């Protein structure tokens, strides 16, 4: 064993040598040497990058405050919200239609009766609203003040208008004209009827509302399920994770089973989510890290102090005698020698194995919303590519370690994940939530025997609906 110690000495002294200065290397470094100005600290660049990212992100935040539609993109939730508001406003609507009936202005044209012409100029003595002619448009309709002294006459007129309008409506593509009509009017032009709940009530409660088809169209359009696609950022962490070993050398697997313990499985991902009614599906990219702790009992080099004692005797004096018997004075000297020596002995080698993977989850599931809450169930299959390994495994001789490499670890494996998510609509664009997942390896990630992970994860996610 002492030879092993000499090895250190041999190499320490033996490898030192004199290297002549290499002018080529100096030329290579000379250009990079600082001598005039110091480079700006790295964080200046980093700050610029962060600032740029923030600015770009801000530019995507919508600034349109005049949106007619309800903030929720989900048709079911929007419908529910609208119905609730409509109910509360129905009384107001009845009052408006009754009290203002006498002063209702009707737009008439000699040849045909159309939807309200945006180019018509209307004077109202009570509401004092004006519909002005946009530049470049000619006025075809004349505004006529109708004196409603009797209710039957008003009803007749309205019925006639309704019938005629319905005929026209079937011939025309209202969807195309809606956006134009809205954009041509000022916000206060229909001050009495400009709110969505009132317009909705017109559709359901009063046929008189047919006068304002642009608002009706708008609501109908808004209630249609929009093509829903979104991006989801998720982060997850294991609450329990286990590794099962099978189909290999019994003693090796037994040692590994006792010596290895899965610690955690964590990761982040970005998913593209497509929603069609109740169905959700999509794909993404995710990075995950699996960590396990190992503790193997192998031969280790240990050191100990070896004490030896040298005893020497020295004759101090031989000139004495006792009754003729010579007496010698002898001095005993004991010298203690302490030598450090190395020896091999079993010891625990402890460390961590880390396996980093990147995967492409393909998922399908169901989605259900209730008001601002939403719930999702998903089933994912994730092909994973192992891109980084660090740590050691117990070798087949059960007494040494081998570094993790592709000789033991497969490059690809397949994982299944089932998620149950609960989320809350924070605003029009963002939903935040938490998820509970069950993870199972569908294929082994080791070559010579089967190693599969299974566990439960919890995570958080943010959904962005562009």
């Amino acid at each position, binding site marked *: 064993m002492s*030879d*092993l110690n000499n*090895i*250190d000495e*041999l*190499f*320490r002294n*033996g*490898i*030192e*040598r*004199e*290297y*002549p*200065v*290499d002018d080529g*290397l*100096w030329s*290579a*470094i*000379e250009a*990079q*040497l*600082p*001598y*005039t100005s110091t480079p700006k600290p790295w964080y200046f660049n980093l700050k610029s990058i962060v600032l740029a990212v923030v600015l770009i992100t801000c530019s995507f935040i919508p600034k349109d405050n005049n949106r007619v539609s309800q903030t929720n993109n989900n048709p079911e939730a929007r419908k529910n919200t609208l119905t609730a508001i409509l109910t509360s406003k129905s009384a107001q609507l009845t009052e408006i239609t009754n009290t203002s009936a006498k002063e209702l202005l009707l737009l008439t044209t000699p040849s045909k009766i159309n939807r309200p012409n945006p180019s018509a100029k209307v004077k109202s003595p009570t509401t004092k609203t004006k519909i002005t002619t946009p530049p470049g448009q000619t006025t075809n309709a004349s505004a006529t003040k109708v004196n409603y002294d009797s209710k039957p006459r008003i009803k007749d007129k309205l019925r006639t208008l309704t019938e005629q309008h319905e005929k026209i409506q079937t011939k025309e593509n209202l969807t195309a004209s809606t956006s134009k009509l809205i954009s041509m009017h000022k916000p206060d032009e229909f001050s009495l009827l400009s709110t969505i709940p009132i317009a909705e009530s017109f559709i359901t409660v009063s046929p008189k509302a047919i006068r304002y088809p642009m608002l009706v169209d708008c609501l109908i359009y808004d209630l249609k399920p929009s093509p829903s696609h979104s991006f989801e950022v998720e982060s997850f962490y294991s609450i329990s994770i286990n590794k099962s070993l099978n189909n290999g050398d019994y003693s090796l697997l037994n040692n590994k089973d006792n010596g290895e313990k899965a610690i955690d499985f964590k990761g982040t991902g970005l998913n593209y989510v497509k929603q069609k009614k109740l169905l959700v599906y999509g794909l993404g990219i995710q990075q995950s890290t699996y960590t396990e702790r190992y503790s193997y009992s*192998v*031969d*280790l*080099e*240990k050191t100990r102090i070896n004490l030896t004692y040298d005893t020497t005797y020295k004759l101090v004096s031989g000139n004495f005698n006792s009754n003729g018997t010579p007496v010698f004075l002898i001095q005993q000297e004991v010298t203690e020698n302490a030598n450090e020596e*190395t020896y*091999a002995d079993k*010891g*625990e*080698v*402890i*460390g*961590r194995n880390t396996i980093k993977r990147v995967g492409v989850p393909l998922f399908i599931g169901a989605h259900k919303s209730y008001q601002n809450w939403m719930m999702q169930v998903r089933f994912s299959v994730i092909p994973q590519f*192992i*891109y*980084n*390994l*660090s740590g*050691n495994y117990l070798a087949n001789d059960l007494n*040494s*370690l081998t*570094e993790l*490499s*592709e*000789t033991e*670890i497969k*490059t690809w494996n397949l994982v299944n994940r089932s998620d149950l998510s609960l989320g809350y609509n924070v605003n029009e664009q963002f939903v935040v939530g938490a998820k509970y997942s069950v993870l199972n390896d569908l294929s082994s990630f080791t070559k010579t025997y089967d190693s599969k992970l299974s566990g439960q994860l919890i995570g958080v996610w943010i959904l962005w609906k562009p």
Partner: protein
Amino acid sequence: MNIDKSLIESCLNKERAGQNRMYKELFSYLMNICMRYKNDYDTAGASLNAIYLKILDNLPKFRKEDSFIAWIKRIAVNHLIDEYRKDKRIKKHTTYFEDNRVPESKSFHSKEAEMESEYLLEMIRELPPTTQKVFNLYSIDGYRHKEIGALLEMSENTSKWHLREARIKLQAKVLVFNKTEP
């Protein structure tokens, strides 16, 4: 190696002549360290230059009461270990193959009494990467197992195990060398 205060001051003032002189003074010492951690002269030279830049960058932080040589050695070793970690991340599936090739004959036969440093270096380089680093750090650079564990992200016992492996393998190589030596 003659590193005096005026030379350090000159480098602090970013004088090119002083930087050149310092480079020449440190070259052999740094190259000896780099050659132990790198496989060939070219990569060792590249590392040496990177280390030298680091030394110049950090020179204002050097405390004059400390040993300059110990300070640059620490910078060099830390840099080389960082590079090793980076390489390890990049070469994700590094497989170690036992290299049993016989060293070049000129190196083998040029010395009769003692082993040539190149051959000894070659023996170290033939060790598995982590074992090689542990041996260099412990036996040559004088690091303790605890420090090695922190540097190479392993436990003390793992470091001890690597050291034992290194010593056993090197001893075997030395024995083979002695037997084959005429």
